[in-house]
């Protein structure tokens, strides 16, 4: 994924996209390969296969969990709208304060 500095927020959980393991394809490829090749040792091969399948499952679950922790509950437009609203709010409040703070009686 794209590199670059992304500061982590207070939580320890990976809120940066960098840390999400999204390389699922290699695992799938490895499983298929190991199934397709002629089994020399059938038992070992089936053990390895099941291990790899489990690994695939685990990776998928990890990805899902990590996605859930990202702060992306909205799609981009909504988020940008919220950002605008926040900015306006900040501006309004700053204006209000400026107006009343320096009144000389």
């Amino acid at each position: 994924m794209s590199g670059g500095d992304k500061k982590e927020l207070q939580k320890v959980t990976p809120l940066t996209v960098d840390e999400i393991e999204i390389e699922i394809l290699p695992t799938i490829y490895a499983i298929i390969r190991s199934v397709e090749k002629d089994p020399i040792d059938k038992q070992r091969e089936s053990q390895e296969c099941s291990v790899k399948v489990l690994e695939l499952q685990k990776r998928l679950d990890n990805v899902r969990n990590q996605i859930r922790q990202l702060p992306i509950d909205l799609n981009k437009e909504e988020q940008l709208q919220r950002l605008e609203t926040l900015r306006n709010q900040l501006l309004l409040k700053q204006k209000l304060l400026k107006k009343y703070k320096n009144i000389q009686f």
Partner: protein
Amino acid sequence: MTFHLSTKERLLAIVDDIEIIAKELIENTIAPKHQKISSTEHAQLVELLVAKDAELKSVLQLACDQTKIEQKMNSLRAQVELQDQEINQLQKQLKEAEQVLSTALFQARQKLASIARANKKPVPSEELIKYAHRISASHAISAPLTWQQGDLRRPYPTDIEMRLGFLGKSDLSINGHNLQHHSSLSEMHRNTTGEVPASAQNQFAWHPSGELHMNVLASGGSILLDTRGRKNTSQVEVEVMSTESSSSSSSDSQ
């Protein structure tokens, strides 16, 4: 296609799709020969898998952008929080100021009202001082300087003095006796606002009686202040008392 789903939901959906496709492929690989899907379908599945993976990566990039935006929003929120606190503080100060000002206004109005009332009926200070002298002449305010234990005089108007006063005499003769009183006198009776002294021992309030008495004297009435055998000394003692009473009255005056 416009997605109204959140980015999170999109990502999760893509991940689910990838899982399903992967399962299909693996099952196909394991399946016995007669159940295998055609190679074209197989190829299509594989292509689909690859496409899904690419989609996943692109949406993740979107997620990355959104994370950055979220960080900006957090910092904005912190700033807004600061502003909120300052606004609250300002509000508190304004409220306090308003309270102080309204109290001051109220008190000022009261003062103005009392000034107006006082201006309607001005009383010359000379008259007040004379009055003070007279009411203290009979030692009804404080004991004389030469007072000793066992002296029968009291620092308040005694029973006899009250009965000898105007109120006592008018009470005895309700129907007939024409005492010298002017209409202005009775008016002044009604207008007096007196404090009831703590040491009033008879049924008359001292203050009205004393004032009545004084007014009688001021208007040249015939009723003299009759304190037991002190008619002569009272004249002398008025001078002595005057300094004393003036000090007390000046301390009382506001």
